[in-house]
């Protein structure tokens, strides 16, 4: 998603620049504020200074004033100056010159304040002296008569002093004539002269200094310096403002361009997103729809099943669809599937509570919600009729289909329906079947699964073991042979009989292993007991299992002395398909000296024709006949017939299931050669050392 990343980048730039704009605004605001405040502060200083000058002027005009005002104006000027130096803006290098100006202003200000202090000191004396002289002459008015000349001289001098003070010009004072020279005998007059001269001298001496100080104060450069300070600051600030302007413009352009870019990128993004959505939608469709029939697929079925409160499923399967594909090709098969899907769509598209699925190759599902079993059954039947009567026209072919429909509403929905379908496939009389618990299909399956698990465990733990049942020669009353019977030893020590697992094992690869184990273990036992013969049960599957026959013949070849004592019992209950293979098998065994026995004769596929084709040595009469010869005459007759036939064919008989002494005696009387059964012994873990038996 390069586009997306780019968008985020531009967005980030936009956000950063807008933040920067806000930041800039704050800086600018702060800057403007400081700038304004600084100028205000300079103005305040200027005003304070003007006020101070004003106070000084006032003070110099009046004889006496309230000097508090001067003192406070001085303090104010100092304060204003101090606050000016504290401005942070001055630390900025841009305002270095302004800072310098402030420093030079400080020198002048300090000097000015010192001068004012001096001025006040001088002023006091001069004013007091002037006031004194004026009062002095007033008090001495008696001189007008007594010493008129002295009075006039004194008055003149005072006038000069007053003029000089009024116009602030030293030239009004006659420097050669400011003292009263005459001496008087009159103590009062002399006192007048002394007092006059004291102050006159003081004035002449101090007045020039006073005037100079006053002029210095009033003609100082402070105004010019402040004006210069303002100008310098404003021009520095101007360049700062310019820089801020440029910065603001740049920021704004970045912001606008990122905004523009975002819009373009966003439009692009929308376009791509639309494409993506389309792709996603088609992918989604293919995830839940079958591409051939455009019905929902199995995946969709599984998820939809969970959403339905009262599901009912019909599974429809084409009978022998494999052959259509094989004969006409997949093209035709696919077209038929599509056409069948169309039939389903036509039939169910108007129903709101039905949804169609293609569950597998030729398996379709109709999933209903909330429908009665009866209703579903009727629908299924209608559907089957419709399909059976439909002409499937593919290219120039016209085909007819048979279909089976299983109906189920009991959880697990799909599994039960599948099982029902399997049952249905075995029974061609009906085409629609409703699942019900009595079918017990489910428990069978469960048991089968458990048994397979047991077999697997037994194979893994070497618990497939042979048990040996003695076979007695009825004439000699001696054990001549042991039949090896397969058992599975369970974990709790109990034994599992073959009828519980052997049939199931035939459908698995374990069967091969079981037979192989039986051969190996029986051979081992035969080696231990050379006085006995042994027999092993072999089925048609074993004979056709070339791997197994190879193992068998190889081990017989390696143990030839045992081989001649090992007999093979062929299970008569099985139909012998491949006669040639059996013939070949028997021939090879005979070469080792083995004998061949037909097992369970008298039931199932009993077929006398075998005896004409196969070289059989012994016939074992089925237990269902043997156990009842004493009570059922017909069974007795069957047994004697088989015995006679066997003797005629030069074959000996073994009777199984001998459970009472009476049966054993009867068999002996008839002339049956061998017998086995619980009367003599149940199957044993090991053969007996003693071969004697009492009948």
């Amino acid at each position, binding site marked *: 998603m390069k586009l997306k990343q780019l968008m985020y980048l531009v967005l980030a730039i936009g956000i950063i620049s807008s933040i920067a704009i806000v930041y800039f605004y704050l800086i600018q605001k702060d800057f403007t504020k400081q700038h304004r405040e600084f100028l205000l502060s300079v103005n305040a200083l200027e005003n304070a200074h003007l006020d101070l000058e004003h106070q000084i002027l006032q003070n110099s005009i009046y*004889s*006496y*004033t*309230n*000097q*508090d005002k*001067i*003192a*406070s104006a*001085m*303090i104010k000027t100092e304060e204003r100056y101090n606050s000016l130096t504290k401005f942070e803006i001055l630390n900025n290098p841009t305002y270095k010159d302004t800072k310098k100006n402030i420093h030079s202003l400080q020198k002048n200000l300090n000097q000015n304040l*010192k001068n004012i*202090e*001096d001025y*006040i*000191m001088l*002023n*006091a*004396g001069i*004013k*007091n*002296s002037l*006031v*004194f002289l004026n*009062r002095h002459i007033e008090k001495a008015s008696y001189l007008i008569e007594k010493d008129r000349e002295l009075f006039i001289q004194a008055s003149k001098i005072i006038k000069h002093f007053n003029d000089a003070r009024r116009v602030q010009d030293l030239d009004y004072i006659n420097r050669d004539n400011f003292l009263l020279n005459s001496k008087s005998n009159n103590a009062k007059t002399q006192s007048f002269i002394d*007092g006059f001269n*004291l*102050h006159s001298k*003081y004035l002449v001496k101090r007045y020039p200094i006073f005037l100079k100080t006053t002029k210095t104060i009033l003609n100082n450069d402070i105004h010019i310096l402040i004006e210069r300070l303002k100008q310098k600051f404003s021009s520095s600030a101007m360049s700062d403002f310019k820089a801020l302007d440029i910065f603001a413009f740049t920021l704004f352009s970045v912001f606008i361009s990122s905004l523009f870019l975002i819009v373009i990128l966003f439009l692009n993004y929308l376009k791509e997103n639309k494409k993506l959505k389309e792709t996603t939608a088609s992918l989604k469709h293919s995830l839940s729809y079958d591409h051939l029939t455009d019905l929902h697929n199995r995946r969709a079925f599984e998820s939809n099943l969970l959403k339905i409160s009262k599901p009912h499923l019909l599974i429809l399967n084409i009978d022998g669809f494999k052959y259509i594909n094989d004969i006409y090709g997949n093209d035709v098969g696919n077209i038929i599937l599509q056409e069948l899907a169309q039939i389903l769509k036509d039939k169910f598209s108007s129903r709101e509570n039905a949804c169609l699925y293609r569950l597998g190759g030729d398996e379709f599902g109709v999933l209903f919600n909330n429908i009665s079993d009866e209703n579903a059954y009727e629908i299924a039947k209608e559907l089957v009729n419709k399909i059976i009567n439909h002409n499937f026209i593919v290219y120039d072919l016209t085909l007819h289909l048979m279909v089976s429909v299983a109906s189920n509403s009991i959880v697990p929905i799909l599994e039960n329906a599948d099982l029902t379908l399997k049952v249905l496939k075995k029974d061609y009389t009906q085409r629609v079947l409703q699942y019900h618990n009595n079918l017990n299909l489910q428990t069978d399956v469960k048991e089968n699964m458990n048994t397979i698990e047991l077999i697997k465990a037994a194979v893994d733990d070497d618990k497939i073991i042979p048990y040996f049942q003695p076979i007695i020669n009825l004439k000699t009353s001696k054990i001549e042979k042991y039949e090896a019977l397969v058992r599975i030893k369970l974990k709790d020590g109990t034994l599992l009989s073959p009828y519980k697992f052997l049939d199931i094992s035939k459908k698995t690869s374990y069967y091969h292993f079981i037979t192989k184990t039986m051969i190996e273990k029986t051979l081992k036992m035969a080696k231990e007991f050379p006085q006995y013969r042994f027999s092993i049960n072999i089925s048609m599957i074993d004979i056709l299992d070339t791997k197994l026959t190879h193992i068998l013949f190889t081990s017989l070849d390696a143990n030839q002395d045992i081989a001649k004592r090992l007999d093979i019992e062929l299970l008569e209950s099985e139909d012998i398909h491949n006669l040639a293979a059996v013939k070949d098998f028997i021939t090879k065994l005979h070469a080792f000296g083995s004998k061949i026995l037909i097992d369970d004769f008298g039931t199932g596929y009993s077929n006398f024709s075998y005896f004409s084709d196969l070289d059989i040595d012994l016939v074992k009469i089925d237990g269902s006949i043997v156990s009842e010869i004493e009570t059922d005459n017909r069974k007795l007759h069957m047994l004697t017939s088989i015995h006679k036939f066997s003797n005629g064919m030069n074959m000996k008989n073994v009777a199984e299931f001998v459970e009472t002494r009476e049966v054993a005696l009867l068999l002996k009387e008839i002339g049956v050669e061998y017998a086995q059964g619980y009367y003599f012994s149940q199957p044993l873990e090991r053969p007996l050392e003693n071969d004697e038996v009492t009948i």
Partner: protein
Amino acid sequence: MIKTLILLISLTLFASEPISPIPTNIKVNLAKAKLGKKLFCDTILSKDNSTACVSCHNLSKGGADSNVVSSGYAHNKGNIQSPTVFNSRYNFKQFWNGRAGNLTEQADGPINNPDEHNMDPQTIEERVNNSQEYKKLFKEVYSTSYITYKQVLESIVEFENALTTPNSRFDKFLRDEIQLTKDEKDGYIIFKQYGCITCHNGINIGGNSFQKMGTFLDYEMQDDYPDRSKITKNPNHKNVFKVPTLRNISKTAPYFHDGSAKNLKEALTIMAKHNLGIKFETEEVEKIISFLKTLDGEQPKILEEI
């Protein structure tokens, strides 16, 4: 309209009077000032617990010392007469030579002076922080658990700010509330006519400028006196001092920086001779003194409270 005009004119006239009365409605943080009062009177602010602010600024004697020079740490003598602490907030600068710009700077001076309190801020902080009483009082005023030297000074200054003596007869006269007696009035006129007013003006009738002691006739000079020249380094400023206030002057004898005048008569004679270049008639002296006595104000309110 005419009324306002008359008021304005009278205000202008009033304002032109070189002496202004002490305001009667000053604002003071009373709790802080009371705390300051306690500190002002407490000797723990001196190293040997001998000296308090009040030792040299006797609150019952016009806020000044009746001795020529005060004794401080280890009975060491000061080098100048203690000026009054009353109305000191209206002085433009503090100390005789104006070396302190305000009362806080002033208060810091004697505390650290080896001949006065001989203390340092750290010891003061230790001492007040060890006192449960001060800790409680400061907590009430400052809501703090640690007392700083700055707060100590601030409290003392607040107390000093409360030490004003308003409603003197002269202030009342200025406010047109009473008439002065003939002698008092004559004394004031002489005070103005002879030029005393030139330096003694403003709210404190002094305390707003520096002047040389001995303008016309040189006054006895001692080199080690802490005069203005010690600050400005200007030789012309020898014997220059801050003009002292004349408020409550009748109560703050002895007079001048050196305490050389034991009473007002002597002080007036010296002033006339050295700073005015004249000689007062006996009658004039009496009249001036009766005027000066009108400057005695009310005892500061904060001292009335216990």
